[in-house]
């Protein structure tokens, strides 16, 4: 079924149409007006929506170009899904060096948001493993970009929100693995302080670390949660997980409400777990992919994500303030995820990952009260010297964005004049001179 173009959070709702590309030697589409490159639409807010509604749908650019199983160097078209790369590379002993919590995103989208994963402390973000890419600009130029050859466009495009041109293809360096399974440890912790201690300890020994936080817990239990840490394993755990199930339609009323959230958080925290187990990479790294179109569970009004990063020094205080604000609003989040980023600075002008603690939350959209809560979270993040992640955003103020990404003007200077997203218009609107 051909699906309409939405953002993953189904908010905001802006009508979109797509011009599809099928071949990488096709010219940049000659369309009057502004356009926006589109990957698989897994960005939550309006960074994957075109300001005027015309997308260049790059999903048809999904071919491999070359793969060397002796070196792990891979070249592919930019609309290829990470899932397709893994299907081919894992049986040959190679893994993506960095992967977000879903494998259903494209290589182009991974570069444009310089995405991170549970191993940021070890590997940095996606851009660190990009050897080069080809960029198609609306003036017809094709530019091969590497760190050395294109000192401006290369860093502008990594984390460049699709604004510097259409990424047509890319070369990536994969990492060797011994099998498809992970050795996973799960540890329940009682409060935020224990999280920071567990993180410090585990980041030295484990490739993947992350925590789920019960964001409805208050008082002395504030910040309690479940920590997982994992390494690639040599052993196999048996049968592969089964194919994804699907949410067939959007329920008219969201089953995600205060009551179910409270029940979910309590249960999830208490759930008895094997302290150590072998898990298939798909089960451990992509639990949400097991339920296709799960975003529909939030109902027709959609939902919002909020992901921030704050420097380590201010992290304990800021996280306490954020969790306090959420618990107070009673507007909890099912998927509250906390992770310490490592020290490696991003290679992109506007890379989101930076040293510190990153908290990701989601909220069913309930109108002004939801927006007010998120504004309150922004203020805490700004006070702590942090930043809010554009890939997950649909509402932050221009000022919040620009404080978190002070190099935004350099990106604006390299932006392809024909490309514009609803996000970029929104966060730069108040800086444009009225004409």
């Amino acid at each position, binding site marked *: *079924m*051909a*699906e309409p173009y939405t953002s993953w959070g189904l908010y905001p709702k802006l009508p979109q149409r797509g011009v599809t590309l*099928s*071949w990488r*030697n096709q010219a940049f589409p000659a369309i009057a007006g502004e356009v926006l490159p589109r990957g698989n639409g897994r960005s939550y807010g309006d960074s994957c929506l075109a300001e005027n509604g015309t997308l260049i749908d790059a999903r048809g650019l999904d*071919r491999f170009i*070359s793969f060397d199983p002796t070196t792990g160097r891979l070249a592919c078209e930019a609309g290829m899904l990470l899932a397709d790369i893994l299907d*081919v590379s894992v049986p040959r002993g190679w893994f993506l060096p960095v992967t977000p919590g879903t494998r259903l995103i494209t290589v182009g989208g991974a570069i444009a948001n310089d995405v991170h994963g549970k191993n940021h402390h070890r590997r940095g973000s996606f851009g660190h493993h990009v050897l080069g890419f080809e960029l198609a600009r609306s003036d017809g130029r094709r530019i091969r970009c590497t760190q050395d050859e294109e000192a401006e466009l290369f860093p502008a495009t990594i984390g460049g929100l699709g604004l510097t041109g259409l990424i047509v293809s890319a070369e990536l360096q994969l990492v060797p693995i011994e099998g498809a399974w992970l050795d996973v440890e799960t540890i329940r912790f009682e409060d935020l302080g224990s999280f920071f201690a567990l993180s410090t300890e585990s980041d030295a020994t484990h490739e993947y670390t992350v925590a789920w936080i019960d964001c409805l817990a208050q008082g002395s239990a504030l910040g309690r949660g479940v920590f997982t840490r994992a390494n690639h394993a040599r052993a196999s755990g048996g049968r592969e997980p089964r194919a994804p199930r699907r949410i067939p339609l959007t329920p008219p009323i969201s089953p995600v409400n205060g009551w179910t959230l409270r029940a979910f958080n309590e249960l999830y925290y208490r759930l008895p777990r094997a302290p150590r187990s072998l898990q298939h990479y798909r089960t451990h790294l992509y639990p949400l992919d097991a339920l296709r179109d799960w975003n529909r569970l939030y109902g027709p009004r959609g939902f919002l994500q909020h992901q921030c990063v704050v420097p380590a020094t201010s992290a304990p205080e800021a996280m306490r303030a954020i969790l306090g604000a959420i618990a107070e609003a009673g507007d909890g989040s099912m998927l509250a995820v906390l992770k310490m980023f490592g020290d490696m600075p991003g290679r992109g002008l506007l890379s989101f990952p930076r040293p510190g603690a990153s908290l990701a939350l989601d909220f069913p959209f309930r109108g002004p009260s939801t927006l007010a809560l998120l504004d309150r979270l922004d203020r805490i993040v700004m006070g702590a010297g942090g930043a809010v992640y554009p890939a997950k955003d649909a509402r932050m103020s221009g000022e919040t964005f620009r404080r978190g990404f002070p190099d935004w003007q350099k990106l604006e200077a390299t932006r392809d004049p024909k490309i514009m997203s609803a996000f970029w218009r929104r966060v730069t609107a108040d800086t444009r001179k009225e004409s």
Partner: protein
Amino acid sequence: MRKVLILGATSAIAQATARLFAAKGDHLFIAGRSADRLEMVRQDIAVRGAASVGVFAIDANDRARHEALLDAAERAMGGLDTVLIAHGVLSDQKACEGSVERALVDIETNALGVIALLTLVANRFEARRSGTIAVISSVAGDRGRKSNYVYGAAKGMVTLFLQGLRNRLAAAEVQVLTIKPGFVDTPMTAAIPKGGPLWAKPEDIATGILAAIEKKRDVVYLPWFWQWIMLIIRMIPERIFKRLSL
């Protein structure tokens, strides 16, 4: 390990099918009219695990080179056991009504080119008493409609030709598979507004093609529900049908 020749290998449905063959480690020989595009497809299916990938640039209507195409495929793969014919053009019905030339060119591509190659393949497979011939026809070939009867007539000719060929080759144990997709989201249908449950993805069609080949099916509608839709459409009396806008 199959030895597969695909004509029209740059089609979206053919590419998706070639990926499935490649993942199974089959040998592939891909033919089509654009050398650039064939090269991109070759690189892709080589990475996806094909035992070998050969390339042959040919216009499907260049009938003088059909023998050369089959020879080249057999030479490259050390044999040939499966042929998939996938090329086609969706006719601009209005243009065909206004131009004899347009109508005949499309009928040549969608039907005559296919039949020409099939004739040669059939003789080779019959002599060997084995092989699989799979051809993408269309539900449009099941009944003529005013919106696309030039395309439909060509597909209908292919369907009927395959039916006869299947009857002839049954004795030689050669599989002849008629593939009838419904609406598929591919470059061919780029101009048509899409949405709704009737539209399938090329990957879904490819999965159906591979399954039909492996199950030695004769005719397959893809997705399956088109069999029932077309049954109803074929049952409408002509007296009524001629007044409908479908």
